[in-house]
């Protein structure tokens, strides 16, 4: 039977590093995906992720709602990614992105690879706050209430960002879409 996150968080708060390793194993794929798609290059994504995991462990006693660990951890990553964006600007290094993106679920056929690249290009067109809201809601499947808690923005503002992001992505990709 799977141990609930909350139990693992409490064990981590007591200094059990193995419990923390288990928590990270559960949530790492979403964190990795979010960091890469938001920042758009391997180096920044790796640094933001590593920094977030260290910060999360060191401040785990401040996780007041262990049952909402996933949101709490995502909030740390969102903030680290914002810091990196503000430091580097929102310009994505294309050459790095091309080699960084690795669709492990299905080895890309040429057409699929091209479609993936088009999506990345379209993501880069979005304003960072729209990209952030779109990825959190549609890709990582956070509710708007959770997003409000972890981004500090209001629910209406987040809905607007997601809606605009969807419109812009459709506009950018409609002509190359062959679905």
């Amino acid at each position, binding site marked *: 039977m799977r141990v609930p996150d909350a139990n693992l968080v409490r064990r981590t708060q007591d200094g059990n590093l193995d419990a923390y390793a288990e928590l990270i194993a559960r949530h790492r794929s979403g964190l990795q995906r979010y960091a890469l798609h938001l920042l758009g290059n391997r180096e920044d994504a*790796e640094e933001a*992720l590593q920094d977030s995991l260290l910060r999360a462990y060191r401040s785990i006693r401040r996780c007041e709602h262990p049952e909402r660990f996933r949101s709490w951890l995502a909030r740390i990553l969102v903030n680290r990614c914002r810091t990196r964006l503000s430091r580097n600007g929102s310009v994505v290094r294309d050459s790095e992105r091309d080699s960084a993106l690795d*669709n*492990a679920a299905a080895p890309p056929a040429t057409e699929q690879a091209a479609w993936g690249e088009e999506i990345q290009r379209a993501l880069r067109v979005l304003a960072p706050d729209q990209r952030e809201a779109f990825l959190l809601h549609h890709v990582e499947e956070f509710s708007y209430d959770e997003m409000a808690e972890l981004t500090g923005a209001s629910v209406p503002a987040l809905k607007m960002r997601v809606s605009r992001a*969807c419109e812009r992505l*459709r506009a950018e990709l409609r002509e190359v879409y062959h*679905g």
Partner: protein
Amino acid sequence: MDEEMDASNEALLRDIVGSLRAPVSVGDGAVERAMAQLRREALAVRRWRQTVLTAGIAAALVLAFFGARRLRHPLAPNNGVTFALAAPAASRVVLIGDFNDWNPEANPLRRDERHWSVTLSLKPGRYRYSYVVDGSSWQADPGTPLAEDDFGTPTSVITVVN
């Protein structure tokens, strides 16, 4: 027509999201590096605790041996009370307390091999006191009870009798 457009838009969005949800391998190294660093830190903390514990036990044994022989408090006669502290690494130790108005200049201790001591003639009564090591570190006397202290500093208490 509008319905066709809506359906087409929905299909497009589904494809975008489906593509973005695919796992990525970027970040594997970051996760491993973070966990390795945390394990190193945890190991260092365990070793530090062990060292502090060992040093504490050793200090307690030394004090139990020398302190029992040399100190005559907490219930001490008034014909001379010797205050002593084992502080081999210290360069200056002073005694402060109710008997000298907590004046750090009044009663410096003298070094005697590894120990510091000073003998005072005190009137009968109850006194709170502490040692100041190297001008900044307050230490309670390990051989006497701790006193209540409003400021959270380590303070001991002694009662002098006739």
